[in-house]
C-alpha cells in the first residue's frame, strides 16, 4: 500500500523545489463543489466566508488533496469594482453588463481597498479562517485576474479587443490602473494567509492573442506585476495553449504554470520543466462524463509525462472543476494518484539512475 508520508505543504513545496516528494501533489480546484456540498446555490454559498473556509477544509480532508483553493469566482473583482455579477444555479457566476462603457470610464476607474471593500473582504476572511484551521500544513491558493485579462469582464470581450488594437492609449491606461489593483489585491491575500497566488491570464495565451505579442504586452505586464507580489505566483491560462510562449512565461518570474490539455505536457516539461513547476492538465469538462478506466489512464499519462524529478502538480486544466464532476469521479482520480503517483514512479528514470 502506498502511504503518504508528507503533509500537503511539504509535498507541494518539495515539488515546487523540483525534487520528488512522497507522491505527485494533487490540486482539486473545487471551489464550486463547496456550494454543492453545502446544498446551497453559489450565490448563497459564497456570501459566507466562514462557511466557504469550513467547507473547503472539509473537502480537502475528504479527498486528501494538496491545497485549499481560496477562489470564489472570476467575476468577484468586477463585483468589487461595482460591476454586475450573474449567478446561475449549477455553475460559476459570470460578469454581467460591462462596467466600463467609454474611455472616460477608464480614467475614472479606481481599484478598491481590499481590506475595506465588502466583496473582497469576504475572500480575505475565508483565507484567514482557512489558515486558522489548517495552520501551515496545507497551502492556501489565492487568486487574482491579470491586469491584461481582467478587462474582458470590465469592458466585454469585443470592446476590449478593439481597445487593444485601435485605442492603445486607453488600453495602457487601463492596464496601469488594473496593475496597481492586482498587486494590492494579491498582497492583501498573502497578508491574510495565502501561501501563493494564482495569476489567471487567459488573454495572454496564444489561443486568444498572437504569440508574437506576448513579449511586448502580456509578458511585459506579467513581469512588471509579478515582481511586486510578495509571494510565489503560479501563472494560469485557463485551458489556453502555452507552448509557443512557454520560455517567455518562465522569464516572468512565475514559479508554476497551469497547462491546458491541448498542450503536450511532456514537451513542456522538457522545455521549461527545470525552471517552472507544471500544473495540469486533466480536462475537467471531459471528466464530467468519464468513467473510472479513462480517469485512471489520464492520471497515469500526466504523471508519466511530467512527474519524474518533481516539478509537477496534477490538477484540472482550467483552474476550476465543473460543478457536474461528481464526488465518485474525484474519488477515482484520488485513488489513481495513490496507485500511480507515488515516487519513485513506476518505470520512470531520473538523473540519479546513472
Amino acid at each position, binding site marked *: 500500500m502506498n502511504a503518504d508520508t508528507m503533509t500537503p505543504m511539504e509535498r507541494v513545496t518539495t515539488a515546487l523545489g523540483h525534487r520528488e516528494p512522497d507522491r505527485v501533489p494533487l490540486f482539486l480546484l473545487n471551489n464550486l463543489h463547496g456550494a454543492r456540498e453545502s446544498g446551497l446555490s453559489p450565490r448563497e454559498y459564497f456570501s459566507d466566508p466562514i462557511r466557504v473556509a469550513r467547507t473547503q477544509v472539509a473537502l480537502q480532508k475528504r479527498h486528501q488533496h494538496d491545497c485549499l483553493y481560496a477562489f470564489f469566482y472570476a467575476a468577484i473583482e468586477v463585483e468589487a469594482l461595482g460591476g454586475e455579477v*450573474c449567478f*446561475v*444555479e*449549477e*455553475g*460559476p457566476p*459570470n*460578469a*454581467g*453588463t460591462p462596467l466600463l462603457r467609454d474611455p472616460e470610464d477608464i480614467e475614472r476607474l479606481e481599484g478598491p481597498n481590499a481590506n475595506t471593500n465588502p466583496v473582497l473582504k469576504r475572500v480575505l476572511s475565508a483565507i484567514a479562517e482557512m489558515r486558522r484551521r489548517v495552520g501551515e500544513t496545507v497551502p492556501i491558493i489565492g487568486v487574482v485576474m491579470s491586469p491584461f485579462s481582467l478587462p474582458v469582464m470590465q469592458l*466585454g*470581450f*469585443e470592446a476590449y*479587443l478593439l481597445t*487593444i*488594437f485601435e485605442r492603445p492609449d486607453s488600453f495602457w491606461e487601463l492596464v496601469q490602473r488594473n496593475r496597481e489593483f492586482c498587486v494590492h489585491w494579491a498582497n492583501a491575500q498573502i497578508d491574510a494567509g495565502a501561501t501563493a497566488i494564482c495569476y489567471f491570464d487567459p488573454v495572454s495565451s*496564444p*489561443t*486568444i*492573442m*498572437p*504569440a508574437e505579442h506576448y513579449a511586448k504586452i502580456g509578458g511585459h505586464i506579467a513581469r512588471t506585476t509579478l515582481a511586486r507580489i510578495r509571494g510565489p505566483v503560479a501563472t494560469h491560462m485557463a*485551458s489556453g*495553449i502555452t*507552448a*509557443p510562449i512557454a520560455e517567455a512565461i518562465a522569464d516572468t518570474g512565475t514559479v508554476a504554470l497551469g497547462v491546458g*490539455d*491541448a498542450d503536450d505536457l511532456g514537451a513542456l516539461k522538457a522545455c521549461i520543466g527545470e525552471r517552472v513547476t507544471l500544473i495540469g492538465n486533466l*480536462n475537467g*469538462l*471531459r471528466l*464530467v*462524463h468519464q468513467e473510472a478506466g479513462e480517469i485512471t489512464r489520464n492520471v497515469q499519462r500526466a504523471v508519466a509525462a511530467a512527474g519524474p524529478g518533481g516539478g509537477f502538480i496534477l490538477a484540472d486544466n*482550467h483552474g476550476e472543476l*465543473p*460543478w*457536474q464532476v461528481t464526488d465518485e469521479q474525484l474519488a477515482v482520480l484520488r485513488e489513481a494518484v495513490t496507485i500511480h503517483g507515488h515516487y519513485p514512479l513506476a518505470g520512470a528514470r531520473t538523473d540519479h539512475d546513472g
Partner: protein
Amino acid sequence: MERAQIVAGFRDAMLTIDRYQARRIITEYCDVDAPQTIVDDVIAPALEAIGDGWEQGTYSLAQVYMAGRICEELADDLLPPATSSGHSGPRVAIGVLDDYHMLGKRMVRAILHGAAIDAIDYGRCEAWELASRAQNDDIDILMISTLMLPAALAVEDVRRALTAEGIRPWLVVGGAPFRLDPDLYHRVGADRMGTSASDAIRIVRELEGALPDR
C-alpha cells in the same frame, strides 16, 4: 496575380490587422463588379484558412475576430443590399444562451456577413425563447453560441423546446465548452459543432445542400 496569391495576401493582411492592405488587394486584383465572386473566391477561403489556423493553434482568437470585422466592413461596401440581405439560401438565426458575453455570436455574424450570408440576431435568449422565435421565423439553421458549461448543457432544453414547437431546424452550436469537449454537442442534441467562427460558412453551405427546395 494568381488566385491563391490573392487569397494568401488578403489572409495575411487580415492577420496583421491591416485594413488598408486588405481593401487594396480586393480593389486592385478583384472584379468589384462581381462581388459574389470576391466573396466565394477570396473572402470565404481566407476566413476559412484563418479559422483552420486557429483550430491548429497557429492563429489567435483576436486575429479571427479582427478578420471577421474587416470582412464585414468590406462586405458592407462591396455587396449590394440585394446580395447581402436578399440571400436566397437557408434562413439562419443565431443567439446566445443564458450569457451576456456576445463575442462568439458577433464573430460568427461578422464572418457570415463577410461571406454574404445573413443571420438573424436573436441576442441573448433563454431556451424557450430561441425555439419560439425560430418557429415564428421559419428558421432552417439555428446557431447557438455559449461560453459556460451550464449554457452548453441548456442546448438540450432548446432541442426539447423546438420539438415542442413541432419544428426541427438544424441546430449548430459553438463556444468554449464544445471546443474543449468535442463530443458534448452530440450529447445535448445538436446537429453540428463549429470549432471556430469561420466554420459557420462551411456548415451553412453544407446544410444548405441538405435542405428541401423552398
